[in-house]
């Protein structure tokens, strides 16, 4: 009998760098927007509370940025696990604070893609996107070759399930 394996596969250690870069970019964009609002606040003399909200948002962003850039990427990379076999895909992430463990049976996978942005490309990484009904799941930051290997593997399996379904459907119909 098939026994569910505990996920053991890890994502690339470069993930830490990638996350740091992308997070830095988004934090900078957010801060720039806030500064622009602050400028508008002073030039148009908006209400006092708007300024207070903007200042507190900037404060919160700066504090959270420290955690987000230094600790979180390491924590995420260390806790991310996945496992793929012919029966199912398992994604597990999170640790001390909140742990999530997802199981997707192979016959419920609708599509699988690899995705690569400019930053991922620089580190020769790629993400895998697994589409199920209503949701798209991601295995982030895998080495390029591994990602395409996994994609081909999942795609060939889902193809098999599709064929099986089709023949089954014809049988009941006929």
């Amino acid at each position, binding site marked *: *009998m098939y026994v569910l394996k505990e996920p053991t596969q890890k994502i690339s250690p470069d993930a830490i760098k990638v996350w740091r870069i992308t997070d830095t970019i988004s934090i900078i964009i957010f801060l720039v927007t806030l500064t622009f609002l602050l400028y508008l606040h002073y030039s148009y003399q908006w209400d006092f509370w708007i300024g207070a909200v903007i200042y507190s948002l900037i404060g919160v962003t700066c504090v959270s940025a420290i955690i987000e850039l230094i600790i979180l990427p390491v924590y995420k990379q260390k806790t991310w696990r996945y496992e793929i076999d012919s029966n199912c895909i398992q994604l597990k992430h999170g640790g001390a604070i909140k742990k999530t463990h997802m199981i997707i049976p192979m016959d419920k996978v609708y599509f699988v893609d690899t995705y690569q942005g400019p930053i991922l490309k620089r580190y020769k990484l790629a993400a895998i996107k697994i589409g199920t009904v209503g949701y798209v799941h991601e295995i982030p930051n895998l080495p390029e070759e591994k990602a395409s290997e996994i994609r081909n593997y999942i795609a060939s399996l889902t193809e098999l399930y599709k064929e099986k379904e089709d023949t089954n459907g014809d049988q009941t119909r006929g």
Partner: protein
Amino acid sequence: MEIKPVDEKSLTLKKLHPSWIGFKLFKSMRSLILFIIFVFMVLDISSNSIFSIYGFSLIGLFIVYQIGTTILEWKHFTYYLNGEELFINKGKFVTMKRYFPLENIQGINQNTSFFHRLLGLTSLLIDVGSSDKNTSIKLEMISLKEASNIKKTLSEFGNINVSKEEYTEEISDEELKGNSLDKNIHYEIELSEILIASLTSLRLLFFLTVLYTIYSELSQFFSIEEHVNKILNYFQSSVTMLSVGIVLLLVCSMVYGVLKTYLQYGGLKVTSDPYRIYIEKGKGSKTNFSIPKDKIQALSINSGFIHKVLNIVNVKLISSIDTDDQDVKASNVLFPFIERSKAFKLIPEVIPTIELSKNIVNIPKQSLFVKLLRTTYAWLLFPLVIYYFIPGFWYIALLIFVFTITSQILSGLFSGYALNESFLQLKKGSIATRMFVTKRDKIERLMMSQSMIQRKMGLASLKVTIRSRPTKVITIHDIPLQIALQCQSWYIEGKNFSTELTIPNKLQNNTNLYH
């Protein structure tokens, strides 16, 4: 969809009944009236003559456009049905021709509203089973005879099973009664059920809101305020009159409740054949609805606060039928209000693939603590914020506090689960109770999560995703970790992949890469 250059003139193209134009216009005018009210109220056009000219010409243009497109739509909508295919031509300015092979057609739903019945018409919704988004074709406003002809053709040449009774009943009601043997009648609603259910539901509140909406709508156009005040004063003149007034209001709301429920669910009948379930219901507007049994993804058995005491439940189907049609969406109720034991007896009869277990295991008591901690924001922070910023609304803050605390405590006491060979049953209780039953094969994905506090207590949360539109996610919090893990292995290990599917060697070797 494949497009064939067929010589259309050689075939008899059919049109919808001309009254469709009126029907459609009536529907769009309803929204127009709301729009006009909005324009008058928000923009206050009447006070400004320049705006009013623009406004009126805009409204006029809109009406002309609506009438024009509706007529065009009617003119362009043609269809025919022969032994091989269903052909549809539709569009407003750009027309589209489509052919649907009959063997692909998945099912028909019939809906006869009150408006239809006045004209002796009906509407059919044909599930054409195509892969894109428009999976159903609506033939609105066709004659009853035409509808039964279509049903007959589809059951003769297509793949769907419309019983003889269904397509001949409109022509000769009595003659073929004996022929309905292939369908099992499971349930027919009784008048007493309607009475009890509608009297115990919270229709009184609905009645008062309906009354108030009518009043506020009318008072915008007519000065009825005066009369209403007169009536109110009359009833407030003495205690006797006041009690008479209250009793009168109660009786009215009860009559309203019973009448509304009767019109909606009167004559509800659930039948089935080996492949499909047929639900027939309604007195004012009649709906015939059918659903393939294999499209049923899950069942939800619900019970409101009062109904829980009376042991009455409401059974709904969660299905993967792709449709945007409101009539079909609204007909997923299998049993609107039925005695619990009767439901448990009938469900396996109607859907033999579903088994119900009565042995629901309650979640452990320590979950109460986790639940209260998780919802701190709702019972502590939110009321505090309200109290701090708007002290005048202290009673709302208190209400939220009491409500969330009780619902969390009840949820801790009444939530539960049952796991058997191939079914998962999750019960979410609080003031109202909902129980979901689903089969292992119908679960699209399973997610387990565990927060820090949950881990300390040995608990976990489970999220079950079910295919439906929109996707249905059932969450149960704070079940024992042991059970959550058992659920995971039950979900995958019971699937028996290896016997069902042979994996080529090439792939099997590949698997080693990931192990």
